């Protein structure tokens, strides 16, 4: 929105992203659904739609649902990816992650469309409901198709350089040798993100409770319970952190106590205040390693962040307000430690 692009001509990165994440799935699903509709008269009334781990069909549905399922998955998943990725791209954010999201959307669509269409076609060709054809060949075929489409979609998009320019270290705070200083600040996920995470965890918790109450399958109920507890633990430990800078270095502790991250002062080369673009630089939010490597992030939101460069060149980034003061204090402490005998 800040970039002055004419409304009728979005920039090439966004155009190509839309092409591979929405245009390509529409074409793929169009072909897949058309093939299924042509074969529908020959297909058995009930077809296998689900296979267990041993490759035996264990779920069945009316044949006419298959084109609908194909469209729902083949378009729905790419649409979900595109909708969550587009706002950042439109804001002018760039990075390999955005390119990867476009390729993933196209590949997912190819995977589901080819798998659904192939299994449908195979069953239409040998209409023996009791013994549907093997799942392995269509599965392998759709995986190959997904990889091929994903790679093609990656190269169909222009390369994106993450906005990750070198930021000069902060000017050190004036600190006398007899002085001791401490900088502390709490940092938390934005309220919107926190609500979304809590809602997602609650949804799975509700599913777990329902699974127990209806006693559908004990295994499923345990699985859902386990996932709900695991997500709850992850969410609770990464929603908010205390960031502290003192003469021992940088400390980032979850408000619940774990996890804790520390960069000892002796390991610190420099510190700076930077602007973080979570999607483009880290591929999302949370405790993360940047896709390009050598950069660790506690990324709870976009914007102001403290970035510490270790002596080995690795970087640690924490999104926190007043990062300039923290960086200035770290610079002063590093400088003082270096000049002290």
């Amino acid at each position, binding site marked *: 929105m800040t970039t002055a692009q004419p409304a009728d001509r979005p920039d090439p990165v966004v155009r190509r992203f839309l092409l591979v994440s929405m245009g390509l799935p529409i074409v793929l699903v169009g072909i897949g659904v058309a093939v299924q509709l042509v074969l529908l008269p020959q297909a058995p009334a009930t077809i296998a739609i689900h296979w267990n781990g041993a490759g035996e069909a264990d779920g069945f549905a009316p044949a006419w649902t298959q084109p609908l399922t194909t469209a729902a998955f083949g378009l729905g998943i790419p649409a979900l990816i595109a909708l969550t990725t587009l706002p950042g791209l439109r804001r002018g954010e760039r990075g390999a992650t955005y390119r990867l999201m476009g390729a993933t959307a196209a590949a997912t669509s190819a995977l589901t469309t080819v798998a659904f269409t192939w299994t449908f076609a195979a069953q239409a060709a040998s209409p023996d409901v009791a013994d549907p054809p093997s799942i392995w060949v269509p599965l392998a075929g759709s995986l190959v198709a997904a990889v091929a489409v994903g790679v093609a979609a990656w190269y169909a998009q222009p390369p994106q350089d993450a906005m990750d320019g070198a930021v000069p270290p902060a000017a050190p705070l004036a600190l006398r040798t007899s002085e*001791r200083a401490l900088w*502390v600040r709490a940092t938390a996920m934005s309220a919107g993100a926190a609500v979304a995470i809590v809602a997602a965890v609650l949804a799975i918790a509700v599913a777990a409770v329902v699974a127990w109450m209806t006693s559908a399958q004990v295994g499923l109920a345990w699985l859902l319970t386990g996932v709900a507890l695991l997500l709850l633990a992850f969410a609770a430990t990464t929603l908010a952190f205390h960031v502290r800078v003192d003469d021992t270095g940088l400390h980032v502790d979850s408000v619940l106590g774990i996890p804790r991250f520390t960069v000892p002062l002796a390991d610190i080369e420099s510190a700076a205040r930077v602007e973080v673009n979570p999607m483009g630089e880290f591929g999302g939010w949370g405790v993360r390693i940047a896709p390009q490597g050598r950069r660790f992030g506690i990324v709870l939101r976009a914007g102001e962040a403290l970035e510490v460069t270790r002596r080995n060149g690795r970087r640690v980034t924490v999104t926190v307000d007043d990062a300039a003061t923290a960086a200035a204090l770290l610079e002063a402490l590093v400088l003082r430690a270096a000049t002290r005998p």
Partner: protein
Amino acid sequence: MLVRIDAESDAPLFAQIAASVRADAAAGRVRPGDRLPAARDIAAALGVNVHTVLHAYQDLRNEGLVELRRGRGAVVTEQAATLEDLQHHIHDLVAQARAAGLPPDALAALVKEIATHDNRTAG
């Protein structure tokens, strides 16, 4: 929040900690409603006695910058916003004095003189 203490300064440590918090409020680093870190955490990081930090918090409560609530610790009051507003005026004043060539010490002495004089007339 930035807290700094100087062992070689003439001012007592608790007064230096209180002055740091006041400066944080003026700079907008702590805002009304913020909770200050637990006294023992600050004491541990600065290598001072926990009672020194509590002494500073008591002084800040007495002047109205924080409220001490059992179980919630030290919470910053609306006075922080006043200090932050004041900071803008002080910056303007300093800029004017600098433009006119008035040395910082002279400005500080003048402000102190007038503030003291006002206190006398008010008291």
